[in-house]
């Protein structure tokens, strides 16, 4: 008797788990409707002119030399910002891991608080600091270090400074997590085997934090490639990145096809980079 009851209950449970599975289909449908369909539509736009299939948008990128300059600027900026972020961020993160727990929590808060502050506010803050009659120029003039104000905003320099500041948390947090997961006894073991602290760092700590370093640097680089607000405001029209060009194509020329083509190229480049890093990373851990 009870066996028959069990069978009925079990089959009811089975039905329920199927229903739960069906329920989970809804969010994925939403993602398809809101993200994937528009993306495909944009991709489609990039391959058409006036409703006819065409490669004109891509052809223009090759023919018009200004596009090459834009790509170059974008990658130079992303590369430089990433390099500075790594050079500043790695030692900073390492120092945070060495602090006693309470101080390291405080240091992380100092990284997180600007991270939570609006991107726009931080960019404007940098404008206030870097502009011609801004704070930094004021100090330098008062100190007699310079005779005329330096041009720091509306430039590649200003953009780089602002972006490094904004990117640092994106680099520091994943790196911190990866450094924290390194067993402290490993460096101790290296000491006990005769390694100087410097040697232990390069032989043991650095290789073990490499994964976090690469992940953080890659994240920084990819975010930089698509960065719009900071190059626009701190570049002051003198730094034209891909994202700025896309915005111009849409707002100024109302050319969605041209904008989409740039976006497609950017997506493909980022995709290839992620793939390459996956392959390289995979080899490193094997």
């Amino acid at each position, binding site marked *: 008797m009870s066996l028959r009851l069990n069978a009925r209950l079990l089959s009811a449970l089975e039905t329920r788990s199927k229903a739960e599975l069906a329920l989970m289909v809804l969010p994925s449908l939403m993602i398809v409707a809101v993200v994937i369909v528009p993306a495909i539509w944009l991709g489609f736009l990039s391959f058409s002119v006036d409703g006819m299939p065409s490669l004109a948008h891509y052809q223009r990128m090759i023919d018009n030399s200004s596009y090459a300059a834009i790509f170059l600027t974008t990658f130079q900026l992303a590369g430089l910002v990433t390099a500075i972020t790594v050079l500043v961020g790695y030692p900073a993160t390492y120092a945070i891991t060495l602090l006693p727990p309470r101080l390291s929590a405080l240091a992380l808060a100092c990284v997180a608080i600007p991270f939570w502050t609006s991107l726009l506010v931080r960019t404007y803050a940098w404008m206030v600091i870097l502009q011609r009659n801004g704070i930094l120029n004021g100090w330098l003039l008062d100190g007699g270090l310079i005779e005329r104000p330096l041009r720091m905003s509306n430039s590649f320099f200003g953009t780089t400074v602002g972006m490094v500041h904004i990117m640092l948390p994106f680099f520091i947090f994943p790196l911190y997590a990866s450094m924290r997961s390194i067993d402290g006894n490993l460096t*101790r073991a*290296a*000491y*006990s085997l*005769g390694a100087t602290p410097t040697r232990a760092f390069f*032989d043991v700590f650095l290789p073990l934090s490499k994964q976090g370093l690469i992940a953080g640097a890659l994240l920084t680089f990819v975010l930089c490639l698509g960065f719009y607000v900071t190059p626009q405001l701190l570049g002051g029209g003198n730094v034209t990145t891909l994202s700025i060009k896309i915005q111009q194509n849409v707002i100024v020329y109302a050319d969605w096809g041209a904008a989409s083509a740039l976006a497609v190229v950017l997506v493909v480049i980022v995709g290839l980079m992620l793939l390459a890093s996956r392959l390289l990373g995979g080899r490193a851990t094997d």
Partner: protein
Amino acid sequence: MASSIEIAGLRKTYGSLSVLDDISVSIKAAEFLTLLGPSGSGKTTLLMTIAGFVRPNSGSIKVDGREIVTLAPHKRNIGMVFQNYALFPHMSVGENVAYPLKLRGVGRGERDDRTKRALVAVRMEQYADRRIDQLSGGQRQRVAVARAIVFEPNIILMDEPLSALDKRLREEMQVELKRLHETLGRTIVYVTHDQKEALTMSDRVAVLKAGRVRQIASPRDIYDKPVDRFVADFIGDSAFVPLTSREGGVGLAVSEGFRAAHVAGKADPLLLLRPEKIEIVSSSDRQPNLIHFDGVAEEVLFQGDLVVVHATLADGTRLKLQRGTRQNTMRDLPGIGSLFRMAIHEEDAWVVSGTSAGDHAR
């Protein structure tokens, strides 16, 4: 070859907590010394101080007469096996073992040679190319040992190296480490909280409690002649029965000869009763060299190789006695709830003082 270690007046405090409280220990060259104690006794801190990872507040550590207390860890030339092995996950087994040789600038040929020999010593020679995460716990343990001995340090420190292994493997490794100690002839300082491991492996055992060395002696003396109730309690199963001078009072009566030899000068003397030293005797037994006491059997537990009887004495003391499980010993076991007579030979009896400092550790 092996080095002696002379530790004197070592103190370490964290805030108001005294982790090492005036520790002085002499470790002979080629000795296997185990630091044994409950958690928080300071045994690991003491080991880390010898390694150089913990800087004491005061005191001295001399190796072959040379002061090392201010020396950086990497200059001490002391091999160390960590509790979780601390093998470098980004290096192969062979690279891990070769690392200390590489640091010392040993040439390629000799390095390969010595790496191989160290791996042979721990029977891991066919695993040289393996990655660390491909090894089992016991294999990692062996690699960690190989790495700690390959540069031929005169002193090797081991911090609970077997605690992560299962019982069977642990016992196997105990024998192997002991054999390795004999063949290498190095000084080994070993930390464990496992009293059986300490007794099995060591030349001498130092029992620590609250940052102090309570007793340092051979395994047999630690077990049979503990200096105080804490040491007796920490090592092995033990029950304590008060002694009296007159028969019929509270506690047990012992002969004048025994009293003179063991009880004199000890305040609040307690007889230490270990399960395997207690015999079951007939209720009329009155042999002169035995100390007799009666109890009620509460529990008789058959464990395969042993049978354990839990009994309660007239004064409420609970104790265990154990015997082998041969047919003739199984026959005269007391029934549960029955009164029976036990005895311990005066030769096996030991008296500790019940009022020494820091008692009632449990």
